[in-house]
């Protein structure tokens, strides 16, 4: 299939349809993804020569990729709701601000470190939903609270949620994590500096930002460094979790510095007040029962111990890795000769998969909280209902969009798109563009994961055509997606709804876009520099 303007636009049409439906018509990911799936199949059959067998096999390949991701999403949500139902998340969130009288530091602890930690463990809007009301409870303006909670965890999305997005990057590009991790971790580590600085500025203005610099530099170096070490040593599933956990511990020590012990008279930056006064949300409900911080944190401690044990102790890993789900696929060719070689599909190790580790941690955590008497009657039912409610819709969206992306790559549509991009931008400019493509995908689809599904293969092929480092461009894609996902309307709406800003999402959205593009620009500059030298 030759590159022409018509073919390029037709190849882009499924993506355009998804973007327009989500952005202009405010459709959800599942509905827009399903329409995109139909469009992709229609274009693949009518223009790119896909036969019925090719279309059918791509759906089977897509479902293996989807299950690899959904296994983590469902169990990550399960672990979070097990802890949340026990009141553990509230206890951890309340313990942090009591450490310092400096509001800027309180903002950093909750809006940056704690939100990033929550992203590591749960994700899917949880950091904003939990951290924003806690910030409001501390006296931050609701607009400030949502912006701080959104921007603060942007650096942690890619390796957060047990590295769901990174796992998708590996699946879609067919490249091992060991090769992809260094550049992605480096770019995201650098961006954590920007995330922390923006949280400090939004919470306490220029004076607060200046005072925050030693803390932000130390903590971003610690979090970015730990994430880099974990990700490049095969423990990418714990990258953001480990980074944020160590960051929280070091953050507690940093609050002991004389600079951060006392209250200061900071001023909030301009533009944080709303045109109409908003109702302030109440802080999360407290049932008055005493809970231990250590027991509250046990779910996450168990997870970290299990993840390290299963990944690092080889006999344990070998024992659990014995049952794998996979399928074999024949060579697939379109009527125009675009061929995908015969291959084994994605291998899912049922008992050593990150999703399995989350499941073990969930069961142990539930037992600990139940024995400690942290649950009210009917807790198990409520937990399962919340998990189902939270996961079904996003699972449908991911299934449809992965199906769409696999059809596009197996019919040469992705290749046509990549050829067009490489000829339009050229080798010099493309590295600076690639993080913005990732960010755009995440902004529109609401997730780093979906952005990688939509654009990773395209970015990979473009990098190959331009002779650029594929791992650098893919690192920029997923870093852009990570930072762009926190600006997504879906997340902002979640944040606004938890702090009583239901009618002011547009105002908050505008502010978040301004602040959120700064870390993406930092990543773009870094990618451009790394590509040039």
């Amino acid at each position, binding site marked *: 299939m030759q590159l022409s303007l018509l073919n390029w636009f037709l190849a882009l049409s499924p993506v355009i349809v998804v973007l327009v439906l989500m952005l202009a018509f405010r*459709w*959800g990911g*599942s*509905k827009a993804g*399903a*329409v995109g*799936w*139909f469009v992709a199949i229609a274009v693949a059959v009518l223009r790119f020569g896909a036969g*019925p*067998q090719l*279309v*059918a*096999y791509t*759906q*089977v390949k*897509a*479902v293996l990729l*989807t*299950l690899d991701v*959904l296994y983590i999403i469902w169990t990550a949500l399960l672990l979070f709701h097990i802890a949340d139902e026990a009141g553990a998340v509230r206890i951890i969130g309340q313990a942090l601000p009591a450490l310092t009288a400096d509001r800027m530091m309180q903002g950093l602890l909750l809006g940056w470190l704690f939100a990033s930690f929550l992203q590591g463990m749960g994700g899917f809007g949880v950091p904003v939903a939990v951290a924003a009301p806690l910030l409001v409870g501390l006296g931050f303006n609701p607009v400030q609270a949502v912006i701080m909670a959104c921007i603060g965890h942007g650096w942690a999305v890619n390796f957060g949620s047990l590295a769901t997005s990174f796992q998708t990057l590996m699946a879609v590009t067919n490249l091992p994590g060991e090769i992809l991790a260094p550049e992605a971790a480096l770019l995201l580590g650098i961006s954590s500096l920007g995330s922390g600085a923006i949280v400090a500025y939004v919470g306490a203005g220029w004076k607060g930002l200046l005072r925050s610099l030693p803390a932000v530099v130390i903590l971003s170096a610690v979090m970015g460094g730990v994430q880099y070490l974990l990700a490049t040593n095969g423990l990418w599933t714990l990258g953001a979790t480990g980074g944020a956990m160590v960051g929280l511990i070091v953050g507690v020590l940093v609050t002991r510095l004389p600079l951060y012990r006392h209250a200061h008279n900071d001023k909030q930056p301009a533009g944080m007040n709303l045109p109409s006064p908003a109702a302030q949300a109440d802080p999360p409900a407290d049932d008055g029962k005493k809970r231990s911080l250590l027991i509250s944190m046990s779910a996450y401690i168990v997870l970290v111990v299990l993840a390290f044990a299963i990944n690092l102790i080889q006999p344990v890993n070998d024992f659990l890795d014995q049952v794998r789900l996979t*399928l074999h696929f024949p060579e697939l060719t379109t009527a125009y000769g675009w061929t995908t070689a015969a291959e084994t599909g994605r291998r899912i190790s049922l008992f050593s998969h990150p999703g399995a580790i989350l499941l073990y941690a969930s069961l142990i955590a539930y037992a600990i909280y139940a024995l400690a008497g942290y649950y009210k009657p009917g807790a198990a039912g409520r937990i399962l209902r919340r998990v*189902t*409610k939270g996961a*079904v*819709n996003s*699972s*449908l969206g991911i*299934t*449809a969009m992965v199906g769409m992306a696999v059809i596009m790559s197996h019919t040469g549509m992705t290749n046509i798109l990549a050829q067009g991009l490489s000829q339009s931008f050229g080798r010099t400019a493309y590295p600076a563009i690639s993080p913005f493509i990732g960010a755009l995908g995440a902004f529109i689809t609401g997730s780093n994961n979906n952005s990688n599904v939509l654009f990773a293969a395209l970015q990979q092929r473009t990098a190959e055509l331009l002779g650029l480092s594929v791992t650098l461009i893919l690192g920029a894609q997923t870093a852009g997606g990570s930072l762009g996902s926190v600006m997504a309307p879906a997340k902002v709406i979640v944040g606004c709804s938890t702090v009583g800003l239901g009618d002011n999402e547009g105002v908050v959205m505008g502010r978040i876009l301004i602040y959120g593009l700064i870390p993406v620009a930092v990543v773009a500059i870094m990618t451009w520099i790394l590509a040039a030298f």
Partner: protein
Amino acid sequence: MNNQPASPSPSAWAAWRSRNRGRLQAAALIVVLGAPFGLHWALGAGLNGLAAILFAAIALSMALVIWVS
């Protein structure tokens, strides 16, 4: 005398759809995740008719997602 039941009005359909949104989405998810395994087996066994039915089930589930979401 007309014993034929009246067909549901559009607003009754919308209310029913809204009430059962979660169940319908869950059913669609089960089909789109489960049917491809049958599809793989049917294609491998040369059962093209069964493969067509299973693919149609996936497509119908996607259409159901659009309708209920």
